[in-house]
């Protein structure tokens, strides 16, 4: 087998694995695809090539927090949305603000969230975010009552197409002009 066709075959294996996987694949997952030992650098090179191969196609190979995945290019989103006309219900402002506080200030307790929003945290809000697997408890703060510390999950980053929290829009973008005293 010539070197070129060999590389094509390796890329095909990666492609079929990525397309059929229900979750993003990590480099370690993909290394397991090959019986013979493969260097991570080689794998990265193959993924880069695969990305190039798909450059003109409808799907793109992207990297998110949990690994690599194929996803539809944004210009097709409007068409695909028509397949499922019952759009996902919007989260309330309370849910989104709570999520924003956890995303930008994590790890935080319910008390921290209440302090910033100025209102009591509705348990339902936390439940919705936990059911979506966007937040979870990462520990307890060592103060009386040992309140739970909440943080965002990898799944949250995956769902928002992010590799890490540092890819969130910077908080400075949202700071408005000083309120005059």
């Amino acid at each position, binding site marked *: 087998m010539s070197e070129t066709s060999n590389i094509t075959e390796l890329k095909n294996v990666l492609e*079929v694995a*990525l*397309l*059929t*996987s*229900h979750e993003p694949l990590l480099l370690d997952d993909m290394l397991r695809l090959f019986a013979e030992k493969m260097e991570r650098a080689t794998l990265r090179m193959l993924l880069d090539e695969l990305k190039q191969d798909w450059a003109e196609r409808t*799907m793109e190979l992207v990297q998110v927090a949990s690994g690599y*995945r*194929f*996803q*539809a290019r*944004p210009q*097709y*989103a409007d068409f*695909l*949305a028509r397949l499922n006309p019952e*759009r*996902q219900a*919007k*989260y309330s*402002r*309370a849910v*989104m*603000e709570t*999520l*924003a*506080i956890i*995303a*930008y200030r994590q790890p935080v307790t319910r008390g921290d969230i209440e*302090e*910033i*929003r*100025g*209102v*009591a945290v509705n348990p339902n809000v936390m439940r919705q975010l936990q059911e979506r697997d966007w937040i979870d408890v990462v520990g307890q703060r060592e103060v009386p009552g040992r309140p739970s510390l909440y943080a965002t999950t990898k799944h949250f980053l*995956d*769902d*928002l*197409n992010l590799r890490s929290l540092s890819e969130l*829009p910077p*908080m400075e*973008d*949202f*700071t*408005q002009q*000083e*309120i005059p*005293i």
Partner: protein
Amino acid sequence: MIALLGAVAGDCVQLLSSVISSYNNLMFPTLEIKVKGETLGELPQDLYIPPDALEVYLEAFEGPLDLLLYLIRKHNLDILDIPMADLTRQYMQYVEKMRAIKLELAGDYLLMSAMLIEIKSRMLLPKPVEIAEENDPRAELVRRLMEYEAIKLAAQRLDEMDKVGDGLYVASAYYQHISQVMPPEVTLDDLAEAWRNVLKRASHFKHHKVGRSELSVREHMSIILRQLKDARMLEFTQLFDVKNDGIPKLVVCFLAILELCREGLLRITQQQAFSPIYVQIAADIKS
């Protein structure tokens, strides 16, 4: 209208009445205001808000910080221009009215009112010269307002971002996952050994039975298939009721199993020598 805001705002009731009047002016500029049938020429300064209506307005805001932010940013409200005497009187009336209804919801707003009153009070008190440079009591409120404002905008941005299933579509090509575990083969000796065990156990429950029964291998084949249809998989020995069935019936049962196996309807497996032998319907394995 903004002048009115400046004049009456401060206490949460008054903050709300400001919002309501600005909202009313905006939405219904020529609306007549009627109270118990009497038309009012202008909004009263101490506009009373029925608790039900208050609830509606409170729900439009995410809390007192949100409301205060709205008044400051949209209406240039000076948070310290508070008529103290009016405010306190209304405040107490309001607490009375709200005691039974939605006090939980109003609590956050009352807390904010109390905080504003505290700030105002501290501003009014003369300060000794040497600590005149002390922290402005308003600074903490301003810090909180601005922090909340940033979070509020961040939440809006997060809400607008594409999410998987909502503007973001992930590939998931179909792939039939085939189990890598192959069932082990069973030799005739294993089956014979298992059969001897059945007989051995049956001998412990021997009965003296009088009479004769017609035993049909075919009937037992159906019985076994039905058993397996429900249970999907049974241990070989479970197919034999050694306590109640006599040896003739057990033999017929065994013959039925062999016959079913010969016809390819059953699959008999064993993990390793002397381990339990399992019987299942062959079609179940394929599908």
